[in-house]
């Protein structure tokens, strides 16, 4: 054969050197691609947070018309908390209850769509997302009609004596929690569905073969494998629910106000920027603390 392997005795090694300008362009390219988006987020997301932090330390004696002086008024924080701790606590309480309700409803729903729906899967999925097709506020207002004192639901509950003759649903904590659950439920269901859908049904068969009891099969196989979706869904539910004030405003009364209502009025009604900023920061810090402890305990940070 004429083919020869030059095992040795070949020309000296020269490193491959593609055109240098291509190399340089290549290295700069990712930064160019990132620049506009990152700049936007830095200027309109990160920088505002700094400004908010600064505003939370302004002299509370100032006002929007006279201007605020930066006095490093750390006292704004305890003052704000002292004044509004009930609303603060209520935010977390309501969203925690709503979360539990949402898990009880959302898990079976996600599971049924992912594993039991067969050819109806897409239709049911559309039904879950359907609420998001129409305006959030308009839907929340619809609950006003459903829960109305003259409505069929209240009438029914009064008839079966679950509600007293003057009992009502609207303008109660029940209405607010129900509204929160309703509004954020799809955000819990969708990621959960995504991870349950990847679950191989044969695993369940194997599990019921090995563990026999469906409950144990669920605990040993389904639940652990759906964990990423569960974590993502829980966060996507909890974060916006805690910061929400629309449900409390439309379905509740000032007695049901959450911290969002207070912040809203601090900025837009009372024009007390330092207090509003301090409360915003407290809310964000509390949520981030919860999120990160939760993620750490759940052992994953790559969920979103």
């Amino acid at each position, binding site marked *: 054969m004429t083919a020869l392997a030059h*095992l040795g005795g*070949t020309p000296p*090694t020269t490193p491959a050197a593609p055109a240098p300008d291509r190399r340089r362009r290549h290295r700069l390219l990712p930064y160019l691609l990132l620049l506009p988006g990152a700049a936007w987020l830095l200027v309109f997301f990160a920088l505002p947070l700094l400004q908010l932090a600064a505003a939370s330390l302004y002299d509370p004696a100032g006002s929007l018309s006279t201007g605020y002086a930066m006095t490093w008024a750390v006292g704004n924080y305890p003052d704000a908390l002292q004044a509004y701790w009930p609303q603060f606590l209520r935010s977390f309480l309501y969203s925690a209850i709503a979360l539990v309700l949402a898990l009880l409803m959302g898990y079976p729903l996600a599971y049924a769509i992912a594993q039991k729906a067969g050819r109806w899967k897409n239709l049911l999925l559309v039904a879950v997302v359907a609420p998001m097709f129409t305006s959030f506020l308009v839907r929340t207002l619809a609950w006003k009609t459903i829960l109305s004192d003259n409505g069929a639901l209240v009438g029914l509950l009064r008839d079966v004596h679950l509600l007293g003759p003057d009992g009502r649903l609207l303008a109660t904590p029940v209405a607010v929690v129900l509204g929160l659950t309703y509004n954020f439920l799809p955000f819990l269901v969708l990621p959960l569905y995504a991870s349950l859908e990847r679950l191989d049904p044969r695993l369940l068969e194997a599990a019921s073969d090995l563990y026999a009891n469906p409950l144990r099969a669920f605990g040993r196989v389904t639940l652990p494998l759906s964990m990423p979706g569960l974590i993502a869904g829980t966060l996507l539910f909890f974060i916006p629910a805690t910061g929400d004030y629309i449900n409390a405003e439309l379905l509740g009364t000032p007695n049901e106000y959450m911290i969002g209502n207070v912040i809203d009025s601090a900025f837009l009604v009372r024009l007390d920027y330092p207090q509003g900023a301090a409360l915003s920061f407290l809310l964000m810090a509390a949520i981030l603390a919860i999120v990160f402890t939760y993620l750490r305990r759940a052992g994953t940070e790559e969920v979103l």
Partner: protein
Amino acid sequence: MAQEAPAGDLRLADVTKRFGVFTAVDDLSLTVPQGSFFALLGASGCGKTTTLRMIAGLEAPTSGRVLLGDRDITGLRPYKRPVNTVFQSYALFPHLDIHENVAFGLRRRGIRKVGEQVERMLALVQLDGYGRRRPAQLSGGQQQRVALARALINHPQMLLLDEPLGALDLKLRRQMQIELKRIQAEVGITFLHVTHDQEEAMWMADTVAVMNAGRIEQLGAPADIYEYPASPFVANFLGQSNLIEAEVSGHDADDLLVTGHGYRFATPLERARSRQGPVWLGVRPEKLHLVADRTRVPDGRNAVSGVLTDICYAGVSTEFLLRTAWGQEMSVFTANNDPDARLVPGVEVTAHWHPRHSFVLPRDDSAGDDADGSATRPGATGGGRADGSPADGGVGVPPQRLEAAT
């Protein structure tokens, strides 16, 4: 592309590719003559795909050069090279139908009227009428043929085939092998064909290169490599070999004499790659003859005795496993014409062969202690036989030991 520099051989000169600290291709030099059908053979992960990718321009070598004829194409972009690839994973474009997949290369070169050529190409790979389908609607084998058509239609100077027949059934595979050989002979394109399948490599190519751990271990015509392998790795990767640990004890006029495990073996001098010190004595399983009676061994033949441990019927042939006194399993193939009824498991037999069928390879002493270089290629045996564990002695020589031996 049409206006090529003078066509010519492909040369890799000291090409090395590292991924981080891992060396995938190690100082490889290789010439693929123009118009040849060249097979690159090697175990999984030895760097075959990486080598092809450097030739195609999809990977830049860490060092070294790639030359096509007189032209250094090391830094050339892939789309400027007169080289096309049939990818190991097909890489068909899922959003284009089969017709457009095949026409893709022609269109990128500005050719407008492609219909007829595409039809002809599809007919060639027996896919006429499939033009309007999407890749996802084809079977694995059909997709593979589309990948082939998509590359061939461009009449490149060189075609790189990365295991192009892996997904086909035996019959179709055979057909495609014939088809590929025919096309290659017809159009005179250089084919660089990567495969796991040693039989396919030997059957199709006029030159075979056996690659191991990023290096070429041996290169030559299939028969040359098979009959006279250059290293224990090649001896066991391309077919199987029985390798017996031995020492050179002298030579007479034409033969080298070696001794191992109390036996003395002769090998023609021109079939010995080492003439002193520790060596492997090798012989292919089909060259061996079995006799039940030791005294019936003809004069002048090499012989080894042992106990039959297993007999595997494989249609055209039967494989006998012979366990020697020192625990090595030797493999013997015999054609199934006159099966000897006395050969049953448990009996003492002798295997003998003509000295000109032996070959001698250098053996690295430090490495030879615990491996006694048995016959069987890992993976070629199996099927519930009791080999493969080190205690049995049926160990294929680990590749890293062999680098020093080559």
